[in-house]
């Protein structure tokens, strides 16, 4: 099986140093880059699938040129090679453009499954997988908590998490799957993996290398952030450190005051 995984380099949410630039675009240099959390689940699932069924995992990112640093982390987990679409004209790209670019780059690669994260920690649009599937004319199996391909039958079955539990959905391959943490924790790269990743190929592509993608000139994106602020701080609360019975009464009083009991 050939599996292509969309991995987005995002600012490390744990570092807490994300910043918005003057135009309210994310300052991607301000914070260290990591592979988007949900994409790591996708990558882990992909690696397990090729371990079970044979084949290869490839990663695809659209990012500034230094995106290769973050991609090496994904390669160290076990992906065989990477493709980085990078072009100054894509700085601050909107979702329709991101979708068109990723779809065009993916269509140049043969794959049985295209895996993406459910959403991203920096933007959280949660629409890219569906958009890419629509452009490629492939079925989308979204919000996956388990993935079971049947390569002989050319079909794949997914446990799609729902508000109530899950649905079991099935489609012919190739198919697009959006991945969640329910797939299981990503592995830590081994030392051997880290060494091997140094020499693995990351092919760079510019917009001109992609088939039939036009990008609005001068960053005339379909959407624009006009204002950004910190969320309002809540008024300082009350801290209680009393024996359990007393603490319980305090909580009950608090709830009664607010007519919650």
């Amino acid at each position, binding site marked *: 099986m050939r599996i292509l995984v969309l991995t987005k380099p995002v600012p490390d949410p744990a570092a807490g140093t994300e910043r918005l630039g003057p135009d309210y675009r994310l300052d991607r240099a301000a914070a260290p880059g990591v592979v988007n959390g949900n994409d790591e689940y996708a990558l882990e699932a992909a690696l397990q699938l090729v371990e079970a069924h044979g084949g290869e995992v490839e990663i695809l990112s659209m990012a500034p040129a230094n995106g290769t640093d973050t991609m090496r982390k994904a390669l160290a987990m076990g992906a065989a090679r990477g493709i980085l679409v990078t072009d100054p004209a894509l700085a601050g790209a909107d979702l329709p453009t991101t*979708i068109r670019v990723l779809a065009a780059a993916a269509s140049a690669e043969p794959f049985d499954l295209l895996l993406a994260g459910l959403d991203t920690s920096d933007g959280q649009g949660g629409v890219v997988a569906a958009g890419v599937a629509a452009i490629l*004319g492939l079925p989308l199996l*979204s919000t996956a908590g388990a993935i079971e391909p049947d390569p002989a039958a050319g079909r794949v079955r997914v446990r799609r998490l729902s508000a109530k539990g899950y649905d079991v959905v099935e489609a012919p391959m190739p198919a697009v799957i959006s991945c969640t943490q329910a797939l299981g924790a990503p592995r830590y790269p081994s030392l051997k993996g880290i060494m091997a990743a140094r020499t693995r190929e990351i092919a760079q592509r510019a917009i001109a290398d992609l088939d039939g993608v036009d990008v609005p000139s001068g960053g005339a994106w379909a959407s624009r952030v006009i204002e950004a*602020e910190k969320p309002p701080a809540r008024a300082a609360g009350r801290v209680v450190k*009393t024996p359990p019975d007393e603490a319980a009464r305090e909580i009950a009083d608090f709830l009664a005051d607010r007519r919650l009991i």
Partner: protein
Amino acid sequence: MAAVILAVAEVADGALTRLSTEVATLARELAAQAGGTALGLVVDAAPDAGAAQLAPYLPRVVAVTSPACAGETWAPHAAAEVRRLVDEGVTHVLVGATTDGRDLAGALVGLLGWGVLANASGVTWSPDGPVVEASILGGKAITKSVLTGDAGIVTVRLNAATATAAASPGAVEIRDVAAEPATPAATVLERVAEAGAEASLEEARVVVVGGRGVGSREGFAIVEELAAALGGVLGATRASVDAGWVPYARQIGQTGKVVKPALYLGLGVSGAMQHRVGMQSAEAIVVVNRDPDAPIAEVADLFVIGDLFEVGPALLAELRARRGS
């Protein structure tokens, strides 16, 4: 060009979801501000009840009977109907930021090339079109965004608007299904309801959450009992979901649900940013944590420093005693 704003509704078990009534209200209010028109869309194997429930909120509701939705994924079929309405003049599409809603929004972005503003927690209308407020970077910033063209898609979070009916109900128009889904649909073999996942977390007035501090599946008994005593619904952090104590459908936070209850009661929850983004707009936040430095203190209205296995049972007894009296 006057805006024509479409609210795409979702039906669950034959009934309209609460989020759909909010999306519909938003579409109507925005259309009024824009001097345009609003309409609703219900696509389902049996859309009649949902359409009737949607009609009080919008002047016009299009109901499409799509038998395939019973056994296939919904978004490809809904996208085909939205595309027909776009051909008839719809300029803006509003849909809930749900699993199906995001699948639909993504398909439409791909097919129409329209801009999308995601996860709206509020929407107003300006001369440039919709202005969408959303929380990004795991709750670290709140942005306002606009579309630069005169068409686009907005995905809407729960509680972005208060559902209110229009002065007079709208007309329901029944339509035949479009010939083909807009993208290939997947087959739904089975829909499984998991125990403990039924009650709607997002719609609950009281949410009682257990974190890693609860320590085990058995430990959740006290969290569940408190939830029951308060007439609330059980929620979880990612740590307790990952440990397998609680199903993923209960997770609150960046990769789970966003809740805005009247009361959030958290036991053994540290309050990581990724969790807070899903709960910090609760009206009242009460937490029990034995670590006085837990970051959840920053958002708590009442922070009880203590062991949840001592304070929890004491609170349960207190609630029962007060109810008895």
